[in-house]
C-alpha cells in the first residue's frame, strides 16, 4: 500500500488537496499577523531601550560571541528544515524525519543557550522588574523563545505521529507548514540580533 501511495503522490504533495492549500494560505496569513505582533514588541523595545532607570544597560550586558553562536545555530536549523522539505520533493519520508530531528535538536540547544543567557543577565543585575528596558528586553526575547519552544513541540509531535508512516497528502502539508513556521522564527531572530544586540552595543 505504501508503494502505491508513493506512486500516486504528486510532486508537491503539500498543495495537492484543498485542505493542504487552505492550511498553506492560512499559515502565511498567520505569519503576516505575527509580523505585526513582533513589530509591536520591537517598537516597544526600541522605545524603551534607553530607559534603564539606573539598572544595567544593553552595552554593559550583551555578549556578542554568545549571540553569534545562537544566530548560527538557528540559521543552521533553518537550513535543516529546508533539507527536510527537499527530502519531501524526493518523497523520502526517512529524510524528512531525519532532518526535522536535527532541527528540533538545534532548536532545543538554542533555547538552552537563551536560558543560560537570561540566567547570566539576571545575575548581572538585569532582573525582569529592574527597569522598563529589562521588561521590554525579556518580553521580546521571551516571546521569540516561546515561539521556538512551540515550534520544537510542534515538530516533535509531527515526528512522533508520522515516524512509521508513509508520506501522503494528509501529512505532507503538516510538515511543510512546520518548516515555514520555523523559517519565520529565524526571520524574527535576524531582526532580534540586528536591532537588539548589534544596535545595542553600537
Amino acid at each position, binding site marked *: 500500500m505504501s508503494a502505491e*501511495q508513493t506512486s*500516486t503522490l504528486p510532486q508537491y504533495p503539500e498543495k495537492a*488537496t*484543498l485542505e493542504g*492549500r*487552505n492550511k498553506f*494560505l*492560512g499559515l502565511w*496569513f*498567520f505569519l*503576516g*499577523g*505575527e509580523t*505585526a*505582533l513582533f*513589530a*509591536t*514588541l520591537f*517598537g*516597544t523595545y526600541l*522605545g*524603551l531601550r534607553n*530607559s*534603564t*532607570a539606573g539598572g544595567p544597560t544593553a552595552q554593559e550586558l550583551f555578549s556578542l560571541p554568545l549571540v553569534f553562536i545562537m544566530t548560527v545555530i538557528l540559521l543552521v536549523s533553518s537550513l535543516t528544515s529546508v533539507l527536510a522539505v527537499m527530502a519531501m520533493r524526493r518523497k523520502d519520508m526517512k529524510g524528512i524525519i531525519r532532518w526535522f530531528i536535527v532541527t528540533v535538536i538545534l532548536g532545543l540547544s538554542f533555547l538552552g543557550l537563551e536560558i543560560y543567557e537570561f540566567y547570566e543577565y539576571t545575575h548581572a543585575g538585569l532582573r*525582569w*522588574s*529592574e*527597569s*522598563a*528596558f*529589562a*521588561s*521590554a528586553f525579556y*518580553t521580546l526575547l521571551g516571546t521569540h523563545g516561546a515561539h521556538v519552544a512551540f515550534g520544537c*513541540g*510542534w515538530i516533535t*509531535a*509531527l515526528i*512522533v*505521529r508520522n515516524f512509521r508512516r508513509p508520506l*501522503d*497528502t*494528509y501529512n505532507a502539508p*503538516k510538515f511543510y507548514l512546520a518548516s515555514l513556521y520555523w523559517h519565520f522564527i529565524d526571520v524574527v531572530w535576524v531582526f532580534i540580533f540586528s536591532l537588539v544586540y548589534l544596535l545595542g552595543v553600537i
Partner: protein
Amino acid sequence: MATHTEQVSLNRKQRSGIWDWITTVDHKKVGILYFLAGFFFFLLAGLEAVIIRVQLIYPELNIVSAQTFNELITMHGTTMIFLAAMPIFLGLMNCIVPLQIGARDVAFPFMNALGLWLFIFGGLLLNLSWFLGGAPDAGWTAYAPLSTDYSGTSGMDFYVLGLQIAGFGTLMGGINFLVTIINMRAPGMSFMRMPMFSWATFVTSALILFAFPPLTIGFFLLMFDRFFGSNFFVADAGGNVIIWEHIFWIFGHPEVYILILPAFGILSEVIPTFSRKRLFGYSAMVFATALIAFLGFMVWAHHMFTTGLGPVANSIFAVATMTIAIPTGVKIFNWLFTMWGGQIRFPTANLWAVAFIPSFLIGGMTGVMLSVAPADYHYHDTYFVVAHFHYVIVGGSVFGIFAGMYFWWPRIFGKMLNETLGKWHFWTFFVGFHLTFFPQHFLGLMGMPRRVFTFLEGQQLELGNFISSIGSFLMTIGSIILIINIIMTQAKKEVAEYDPWDGRTLDWAIPIPTPVYNFAQLPLVKGLDPLWVEKMNGNNKMTPAEPLDDIHMPNSSILPFVMSLCFFIASFGFIYDVLIVAILGIAGFFFCMLLRSLIDDHGYYIKKEELAPVVDEGGKA
C-alpha cells in the same frame, strides 16, 4: 483525498440537543451561536447604557455612584464593541459568506468553532467581573496608568484577560474568512463577481489580521504590568504610557473600520435587492472598501491630537483622516444612485438601510470636523465626540446589523420576521436614536465633558440631557419590540418560502432551511449577481458546475469548547494569583492542541443518495 477514503467513516454520526451545539463545526450553526451570544451582549450593554442615561436625566442625581458609573461606561463601550457588534457581524459573515461565494464550508471549520468559543468564554469572563469585586473602570481605552495604578477594582484584570481571549478568537475568525474567500469560491466566481458583503468580509478580515496582533501585545504588556511587576507603563522605572496609547489606537482605529465595513457590505446587498437594480458602481465600491481599509491604518494618531504629538505629526494625521471621507463619499453616492430609478420597496430591512445613509452621513461629517487638529483641542473628550461615534456606530453599524437581520433572518433561521412589529421597531428605535444623540453634539460644544457621572444645575445642560435620556428610553422600547418580534417569529411554525425577497446572489439560490452541505452541486457563476443572471435567462435555479457526488464534511469536535474552557480557567488562576491553576489551564489548552495534531481527522462523506433531491422551487423571476 483518494488515499484516505478507506479510513473515512461514511456514516454521519447523529447527535442531538445541546451536545450538537457545543461540538458543532458547521459554519451556519457557529454563525447562529455568534449571533445569539452577540445579541445577548448587545442587550446587556444596552441595559448599561440606559442606566447611564437614567443617572444623567437630571443634574446632580445619585442613582449610581461615581465608581459604578465608571464601571458602567467602561463595560458599555467594551461590551458593545468587542462582544456585541463584532460577534454579530462575525455571525452574519459565518452564516452568509460561504453561501454567497458558493462554498460548502469554511476553510477551517475547527478553528472557526474555536474562535467562537474563545469569544464566548472571553465575554463571560469579562462580564463575571460584575459579581467578583467590580467591573473594569478605566474606560474602554484603558489608558495607562489609569488602568494600572489607579484602577479601583480588580476589574481591569478581567478586562485584560477577557478581551485577550476574545481577541484570539476574532483573529482566528479573520484568518478563516480570508482563506475561505480566496480558496473556496465556486467555479466562475471571480473576485470581481463576488457580492459586496463577501468583499467587505474579506477586507474586514484583513484588518482583523493586522490590527489584532498589536492589541494582543498591548494586552500582554498591560497584563505583565498588573500581574508580574514589569515596568512598561511605570514612569518611575523608565516606562512610557504613550506606548499604550499608540498600541491601543494602532489597533483601535482599524477596529472602527472592522465595525463599519461589514455594515457597508450589508447595505450594498440590501439596497440593490429592494431597488431591483444592480449595485451602481460595483468596482468603485470594491476599490473604496479597500482604500478605506488602507487609509484606516494610517490615521490612528488622530485619537491622540491632544497628547502632544506636535504640529507636524498632527497635520499629517489630520490630512490622512480627511482623505477617508473621499472613498466613504463614493459609497454614499453609489447607494443613492442604486436607488435612483429603481423599483424601490420598503420592507423593514430596506428601511434600516435607507435610514443608515443620513444617520451615518452625520457621523461622518462630525468625523471630518474632529479631524481638524486645532478644532479637536476644543472637541476632545466632550460629548461632541460621544455624539460622533454613536452616530457612526449606532447609526452605521447597528442600523446595518438590523438591516442584515431582517434581510437574512429567513436565510439563517428559516422564518420571516414580522413586518408590522419590524416597522414599530424601526420607528421607535430610529427616532429614539436621533433624540438621544443629536442633542449630545450641542452638549459637547457647550463644554460637557464625557465620562462625568453627573453635571451641575444652571449650566444650560439640563434640556439636552433630558431629551437625550428620553430618546434612550424610546430606543429601549424599540429593542423590546425587536425581542418580542424574534420570540413570536421563532414560536410560529410557518417556514419562509424559497427566495422571499427576490434575491440576486447565491445565498438565495438554496432551499430554506439550508441543508448542512449548502449546495448539493456547486453552482456555475456566470456574472455579478449570479442568481439574477439566471433569472434573467429564464432559469429558476443555478446551473450546476459538477455532477452529483458524495460530499466531504468535517467531523464535529468538543475540543474547541474544552480549549476555550481551559483558557477561561487559567484566567482565574492569574486573577486570583493561584499560579498552579493558571499553569494547568494553559497546559490543558496545549494538550488539546496536541490531541488535535495526533488524532487524524478525515471527516466523513454524505453519500449522494442521501442528498435532498434538487427540486424546482419555483423561484419568481
